[in-house]
C-alpha cells in the first residue's frame, strides 16, 4: 500500500498545483498562421500590446484554413490570417466582422540555381508555372490549405494547369520551412513567402535562389477580423476589437514596421487603411 500512498500524495500536489495556475486577467485567443508566429512577429508585438491594454493575447498558430475554421466554431476571439478570398467569404457568411487589412509581405518563387525550367528573367508567375509544368521540373506544394497553398493554386488555375497527380508535383502537407527543405532536397521549385525565406535560407543551408519576384499576383496580404459576437455569444468581442483597432492604429502599424528578424530584415510592411 506504499505505492498507493505515493500516488495519492502526487495526485494531491498536482491538483493543488493546477488550481494555482488559474488567474483572472483579461485574455483573448487569436487563431493565426504558423508563418506569422514562427517569424517571431507575435513575440515582438504582443508584449507591447499587453503592456498598453492589459490584454493577454494567446496565439494558436495553425494553417490559415484551420485558423478560419477555429474562428468559425467560436474557439477563438480574433483571427489573423493571410487568404483574402477565404476571409471575405467567411465575413460574407456572417462568421466574422470588422475585417481589416493589416500588413503584407510577398511571395517569391524559389528553385535550384541550375533553374531547369529557365524561369529566371520571366516577369509573370503564371508564365513561370507554365514553364515548370512544360519541362516537368519538380515542384513542391504545401498541399495543406494554407494561405501560401491557396495562392499557389490560384496561380496554377490562372495558368490553366491542373498539377494534382502529376509526377513532378509533390504535395508536402507541411509548414513553409519544411516545404522549403523538401524542395531543397529534391532540387525542386516552390512558392514561399519572403519572410520565411529570409529567416531560414542560411540557417537551413538552402541551395536555392529567388528566381521570380515582384509580380503583383505574389502580393501576400494579411488581414485581421473579429469573430461575430452575434454568432458566438461567448466571445470577448470588446477585447478582440481593442486588439484589431490597435493593430491598424498608427502605433500598431509602427510597431509592425519596426519588427526585424535577426539579420535586420523588415519582414512585414504595414498597410492598414
Amino acid at each position, binding site marked *: 500500500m*506504499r*505505492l498507493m500512498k*505515493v*500516488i495519492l500524495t*502526487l*495526485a494531491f500536489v*498536482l*491538483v493543488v*498545483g*493546477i488550481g494555482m*495556475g488559474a488567474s483572472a486577467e483579461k485574455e483573448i*485567443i487569436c487563431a493565426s498562421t*504558423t508563418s506569422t508566429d*514562427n517569424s517571431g512577429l507575435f*513575440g515582438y508585438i504582443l508584449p507591447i500590446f499587453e503592456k498598453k491594454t492589459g490584454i493577454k493575447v*494567446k*496565439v*494558436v*498558430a495553425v494553417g490559415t484554413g484551420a485558423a478560419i475554421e477555429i474562428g*468559425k*466554431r*467560436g*474557439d477563438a476571439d480574433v483571427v489573423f490570417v493571410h487568404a483574402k478570398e477565404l476571409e471575405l467569404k467567411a465575413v460574407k457568411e456572417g462568421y466574422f466582422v470588422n475585417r481589416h487589412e493589416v500588413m503584407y509581405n510577398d511571395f517569391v518563387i524559389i528553385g535550384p540555381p541550375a533553374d531547369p525550367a529557365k524561369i529566371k528573367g520571366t516577369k509573370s508567375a503564371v508564365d513561370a508555372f507554365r514553364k515548370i509544368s512544360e519541362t516537368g521540373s519538380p515542384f513542391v506544394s504545401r498541399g495543406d490549405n494554407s494561405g501560401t497553398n491557396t495562392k499557389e493554386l490560384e496561380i496554377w488555375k490562372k495558368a490553366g494547369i491542373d498539377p494534382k497527380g502529376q509526377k513532378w508535383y509533390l504535395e508536402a502537407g507541411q*509548414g513553409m*520551412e*519544411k516545404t522549403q*527543405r523538401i524542395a531543397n532536397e529534391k532540387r525542386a521549385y516552390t512558392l514561399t513567402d519572403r519572410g520565411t525565406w529570409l529567416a*531560414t535560407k542560411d*540557417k*537551413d543551408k538552402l541551395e536555392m535562389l529567388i528566381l521570380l519576384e515582384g509580380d503583383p499576383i505574389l502580393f501576400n496580404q494579411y488581414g485581421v477580423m473579429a469573430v461575430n459576437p452575434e454568432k*458566438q455569444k*461567448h466571445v470577448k468581442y470588446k477585447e478582440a476589437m481593442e486588439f484589431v483597432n490597435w493593430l491598424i492604429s498608427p502605433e500598431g502599424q509602427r510597431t509592425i514596421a519596426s519588427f526585424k528578424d535577426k539579420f535586420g530584415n523588415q519582414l512585414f510592411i504595414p498597410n492598414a487603411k
Partner: protein
Amino acid sequence: MDAIIEGFGKAFFLILHLDPELLSIILLSLKVSGTALIVATTLGLPLGALTALKHFPGRGFIISVLNTSMGLPPVVVGLFLYLLLSRSGPLGFMALLYTTLAMIVAQSILAFPFVAALSHSAIIKIDPLIKKASLTLGATSLQVTTAIVREARYGIMAAIIAALGRVMAEVGAILIVGGNIAGFTRVMTTTIALETDKGNFALALALGIILLMISFVINMALYFIQKKGALQT
C-alpha cells in the same frame, strides 16, 4: 552530423542554465502527464482487476476494446476531443478547449487502455493457488482481490510505466486540444515539434534529450519503489 553534435552540446548548456521559461515548460509537462497517469491508473486498475478476476457477459469484448485502444492514434483522440470541447461542440459550454485540463483529459484517454489492458494481463497471470489459499484461510472476497492485486504489483507497475511512456512522448493530441499556446499550454513535446518546424534542429534535439533524461529519472524512481515493494514481502 553538425546538428546532432550541436544538439547534445545545447542540451547540456540548457540543463546548466535552466531558464525560467524552459523550467515552466518542463513542469507543465510533468503536471499534465503525471495527472493523466493518476487518472488513468485510478480508473484503469480497477477495470483491469475486474476483467481479470470476474467472468461476466461482455468481458471478452471489453478486453478486445482495451487492447485495440492501446493503438489509438493520438491525433485522432485529439481531433475527437477538439470537436467535443469546441464552442460549437456538445461540451463547448465548459470552456475547456486550449486549457491544461483539456490536455490532461486527452492524455488520460490515451493512458487508460494501457493501464487497464496491461494490469489485466498482469493480474490474470497470478497463480490461482493464491485465491484458493486465501479462501481456505477465511479471506473475504475483498481480501482475496487485494491479495491477488498485491501479488501482481510488479506487472501493474510495468503497466503504469508503459502508460507513462505513452503520455510523456505524446504530441498529437495535446497539440490540438492545448493549442501549444506559449506560457499556457506549451509542453516539452509540443515545443520540440514547434522548434523542428522552425528549423531549430539543435534546440529541438536538445529538448528531446532533456525529455528523455527526465523520463529516465522517473523510471529509476519507479524501479526503486517497485524493488522496495518486492523486498518487503
